[in-house]
């Protein structure tokens, strides 16, 4: 969703104004079966921002994401979208909110009994009044956006992992959501496909002004496209850093943050330790 359609071209910036807060997370506590995984989570994300949730395995990244999109109810705190409380909203209001979300799951979660065309068309059939001809145009456009023209009639089982991710993204973008959530978008992808996906995310943000929330620990993606990151830690059971990744990598006083963000730089000298001694 873009606002407003001014006549001044702005090719490299989100069409939306960056000042408006898209997401506000306030004192959120998440967990399962009485067990707290993360607590005291507070952050805001501006409209059109690319925001990464990072951290080691088991720190609660995916848990936080699931609580943000309403798959699980937090035990305390709330999530606010565009100034409106989502956590405590009525069921009907939540459904309205959900129309403005897009989610790309780790496994892409395409409906296996439907072709790619049908996968992307289903949300349009459910939530819009578009005619079949108009839906076909939108589906062709969305699949072309992710580079899947010509694969309309393929089933998910007939395409590769990277293509599934892109098809999942096309489906997530079908209703032009204001916010798109990604759970490990680069997981299982080769570096080139992963970089192409990153470029795609950038172009979507730039053209549509969509807010992107990405759960990942891929450093290349974090440095490549993140405006800001939120770092979670398992032992701290919450957030330990928030800010632009490049800035945190050099100026954070927390060694856990620096170690995580400088892992790429540290990896090279460590390799020398494995050289065969003559």
């Amino acid at each position: 969703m873009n606002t407003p359609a001014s006549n001044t071209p702005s090719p490299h910036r989100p069409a939306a104004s960056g000042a408006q807060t898209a997401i506000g997370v306030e004192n959120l506590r998440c967990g399962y079966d009485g067990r707290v995984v993360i607590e005291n989570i507070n952050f805001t994300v501006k409209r059109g921002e690319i925001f990464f949730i990072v951290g080691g395995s088991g720190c609660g990244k995916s848990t936080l994401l699931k609580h943000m999109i309403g798959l699980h109810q937090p035990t305390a705190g709330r999530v606010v979208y565009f100034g409106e409380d989502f956590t405590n909203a009525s069921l009907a209001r939540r459904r309205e909110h959900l129309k403005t979300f897009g989610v790309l799951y780790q496994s892409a979660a395409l409906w296996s009994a439907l072709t790619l065309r049908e996968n992307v068309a289903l949300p349009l059939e459910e939530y819009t009044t578009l005619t079949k001809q108009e839906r076909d145009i939108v589906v062709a456009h969305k699949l072309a956006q992710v580079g899947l023209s010509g694969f309309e009639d393929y089933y998910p089982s007939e395409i590769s992992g990277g293509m599934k991710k892109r098809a999942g993204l096309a489906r997530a973008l079908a209703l032009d959501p204001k916010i798109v959530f990604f759970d490990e978008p680069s997981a299982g992808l080769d570096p080139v496909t992963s970089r192409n996906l990153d470029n795609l995310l950038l172009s979507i943000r730039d053209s549509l002004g969509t807010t992107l929330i990405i759960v990942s620990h891929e450093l290349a993606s974090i440095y490549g496209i993140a405006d800001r990151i939120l770092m979670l830690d398992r032992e701290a059971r919450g957030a330990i850093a928030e800010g632009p990744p490049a800035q945190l990598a050099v100026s954070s006083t927390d060694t856990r943050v620096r170690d995580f963000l400088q892992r790429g730089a540290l990896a090279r000298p460590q390799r020398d330790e494995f050289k065969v001694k003559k």
Partner: protein
Amino acid sequence: MSISTTTTSTAARARAVPDQDGVRLELGGSWQITGGTPEWASFDTASLAALALKAGRLRPDTSQVTEWDTSLVLFLREAFDWCENNQVEPDESALPENIRRPLKSMRDARVRPIDRQRRPNILATAGLASVSAYKQAKQFTQFVGECVISAFHLARHPKKFRWRDCLQEMQRCGAMALPIVGLISFLVGVILAYIGAVVLRQYGGDIFIATLVALAMVREMGAMMTGIVLSGRTGGAFAAQIANMKTGEEIDALVTFGIRPVDFLVIPRIVALAIMMPLLSLYSNALGNLGGMTVAALLLKISPSAYWIQMQSALDMSDITTGLIKAATYGIIIGLAGCLRGLQARRDSAGVGSAATSAVVTAMLYIIVACAVYAVLFNILGW
């Protein structure tokens, strides 16, 4: 003069206004794909044509648009397509770059018709089904052969047999199936007795209801009903478990360790079923006869002791043996069908469901076939 279409006063609107350069297509309001947006089809294109043809140019103006998404781009695409078909020149110079880019992308995206080649015709479907049936028969034969080889191998090396898995499966498919097998068998006994009572009463042969129920349950229905229950309960579960393992590449992991999936997964399950099915069948016979006895006592006023004596005189060892042989065979069939369909499953979530369904259908089909074969065979043998 102007031509307009709108949804509500605050929502998206479109209006064509003649100006000095041609016709200005004034677009305004909030364009959201999930809300109501003006449709090009509902635009008064005939009047627009009169205006635009005179001017020869259509210039969209989005300066009054407050919010937009794909719905606006879609409207513009349809407007531009209309221009092309009506010799009107579209002027996109007033459009901002962030609208022009997706508009170009949407106009470039080709709407392809559904590829019918990928959905074969009836002849091709019949051909593919025949090939598939041949392949499945071949796979089934190979699988049975592999199971026989594996069974001999494990008989020579009993330490390699997964006894613990086998006992767990025996508990799952045997002890845990007692309530459902018991209930169904009791009710089958009741049904048989009711049907028998209607006929036998007319000839004064009420006591022969015990003979009817005993022979039907012990020779056929006990094993058959247990087989049908276990096809759904255990065969489907075997297929789903193994298909799930296949999806998670657990079967591949076994193969790369040099462990034969048939040794590890199939034989313990088949052995468990081959042992438990006859036992469950005996239990089913007892419950079925109890059902018959209940109906006889309540409906025909035949005492349980009289029923018992008549039942004993009707049955001999060969009846019980034939029932047990059938039950063991059905057990092997259920195990084979469940494991085979699990191993043949596609590596996705839909494959798991299909495998379970296919296992149940296959097991029931082969149980009926085996029942018919045994009927002929035992008749020839005089059992």
